[in-house]
């Protein structure tokens, strides 16, 4: 296990600049968001000061008609009324209903982060073995008292831990920035947010998100291992070949045989694990109450035929990687 720890540290040393660079980029984007929010809130504050109130007409939540929402400042207090009714019981009812789409909206932001990290991870997986072949360091590592499964396993583990860990870290940062954005916007938005956020458990949301990432990692593992396999064999440009060759093949198949079967499969692969989000979106339209949307059906999502296929395919790809890795084919 010490060898695995040292090898994981090796991966961190090699790729730390990419990780740190990613954090810096996302942080910069979050700062840009704060700047936009700050400017946007100035507009609403001006309107509130000028008109004495903000009126939002014909508001709907999950296709359910709420009505006209009126927000006005009374000294330091905020008064919110819906269709003229300022009863706190009804306000609370609607604020709790808005929780679900807000969580979904936050999750969309986190999905964007996940997509960005996934994109970067393709470079990692395609280069994980290829870079060793380029500088012949595979010979060095295989001259050490470490078996091949540790050498390869450390790369796969580092990639998966890196994707999940970095996504979680950046998601937490993103949520912190959204909270900061609300604070910057000031009153009455702080008060509105407090009403909504009282129904949200950030811990629950992040646990839910972590569960989803585990699920996504299992379903993306075949792609990751396929890119590693390509990287262990081709003479150059492993990512281009790993992604380009299947797409080119699918397009050629579509043109020659007038069948989009392979194109559909590729699209299904990349989109399929988002079925979770699609299901949740559908549920929302069906009308949920204001509870935090936990994964709920996690075990059903995890233990199904698609997961089994992913695991089996990943196993086969790993065997191929191990078989070719031992041959130490030099890069071009």
């Amino acid at each position, binding site marked *: 296990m*010490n060898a695995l720890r*040292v090898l994981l540290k090796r991966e961190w*040393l090699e790729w730390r600049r990419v990780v740190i660079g990613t954090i810096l980029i996302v942080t910069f984007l979050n700062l840009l968001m704060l700047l936009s929010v700050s400017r946007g809130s100035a507009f609403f504050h001006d309107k509130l000061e000028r008109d004495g109130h903000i009126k939002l007409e014909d508001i709907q939540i999950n296709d359910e008609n709420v009505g006209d929402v009126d927000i006005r400042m009374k000294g330091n207090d905020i008064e919110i009324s819906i269709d003229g009714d300022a009863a706190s019981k009804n306000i609370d009812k609607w604020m709790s209903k808005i929780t679900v789409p807000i969580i979904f909206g936050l999750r969309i932001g986190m999905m964007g982060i996940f997509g960005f990290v996934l994109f970067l991870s393709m470079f990692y997986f395609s280069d994980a073995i290829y870079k060793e072949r380029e*500088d*012949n360091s595979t010979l*060095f590592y*295989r001259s050490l*008292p*470490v078996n091949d499964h540790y050498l390869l396993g450390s790369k796969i583990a580092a990639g998966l831990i890196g994707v999940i860990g970095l996504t979680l870290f950046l998601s937490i940062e993103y949520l912190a920035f959204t909270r900061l954005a609300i604070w910057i916007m000031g009153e009455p938005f702080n008060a509105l947010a407090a009403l909504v956020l009282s129904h949200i458990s950030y811990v629950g949301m992040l646990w839910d998100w972590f569960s989803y990432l585990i699920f996504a990692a299992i379903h993306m593992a075949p792609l990751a291992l396929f890119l590693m396999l390509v990287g262990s064999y081709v003479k150059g440009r492993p990512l281009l070949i790993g992604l380009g060759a299947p797409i080119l093949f699918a397009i050629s198949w579509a043109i020659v045989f007038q069948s989009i079967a392979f194109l559909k499969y590729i699209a299904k692969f990349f989109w399929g694990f988002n079925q979770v989000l699609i299901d949740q979106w559908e549920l929302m339209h069906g009308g949920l109450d204001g509870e935090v949307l936990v994964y709920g059906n996690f075990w059903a999502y995890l233990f199904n035929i698609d997961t089994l296929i992913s695991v089996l395919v990943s196993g086969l790809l790993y065997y191929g990687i191990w078989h070719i890795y031992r041959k130490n084919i030099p890069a071009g």
Partner: protein
Amino acid sequence: MSALIELKNISKSYGDLKALDNVSLEILPGRIVGLVGPNGAGKTTLLRALTGELDYTGEAKVLGYEPRSQRAELMLETGVIHDISVLPSWMKVNELLGFMDGIHPGFNRETAETFLKTTTIPMDKKIKSLSKGMKTQLHLAVTLATETKLLILDEPTHGLDILFRKQLYTSVLEDYFDEEKSLLISTHQIEEVEHILSDVIFINKGKILLYASIEELGERFTQLTIPADQADKLRTELKPMSEYGILGRRVFLLENADTQALVKMGDIQTPSVADIFVALMGGAA
């Protein structure tokens, strides 16, 4: 005494090319063995088979381990310096030492750092920014600082200047070798290492041509220098393996000759390993 390395009918082919052709030999521990052959003879292929880096047919045991299936256990007791630069180019020198410290139980970081202090290698530089000689020095430092029973050097001085080549073998002998350890050195520049060898293996086109100790070579082969005008007569009589001319005289290389009789014909001496090798390869100056 059990053999350090035992090979039985080891063969390896790359398509139609037979890189190793039924190689069988036994190397005893505590020896410094030179593996000599021209380019493409199969030296590197043989060494990589010994360290489990490639597939082969036949049986092999190195330090009692089967190289392919017990590679990790074997590498615990074996150090290797390859004929090409293999250190991770992205690592810094101090990161490499830290990595070795964590991954190899036999590695002594202090020893490596002491060795590196005698060089001009900066600790905070990436390996890719080092010269070829520095990379070899670094790899040597790391390998010599690791407690192993067998050290394999595959053309370690390839592309390096004469000063460094001399220093490398001196370092290996002074800092590594003792009667408990063994060295296997592959080279096609035999004149550089023959003075330190105890045994020599000649290999060509994947076959072992000869495996003998330096003492046996001295007993088996003789170099006879004669006046040029006697060459034609003695050539027919002695049937030399090879011959060449120098300063108006002819030098014959003879195998299993009667040295008592040869003394009367001319000057005799023990031939160099290089001369024996060239003769066995079928070349003649």
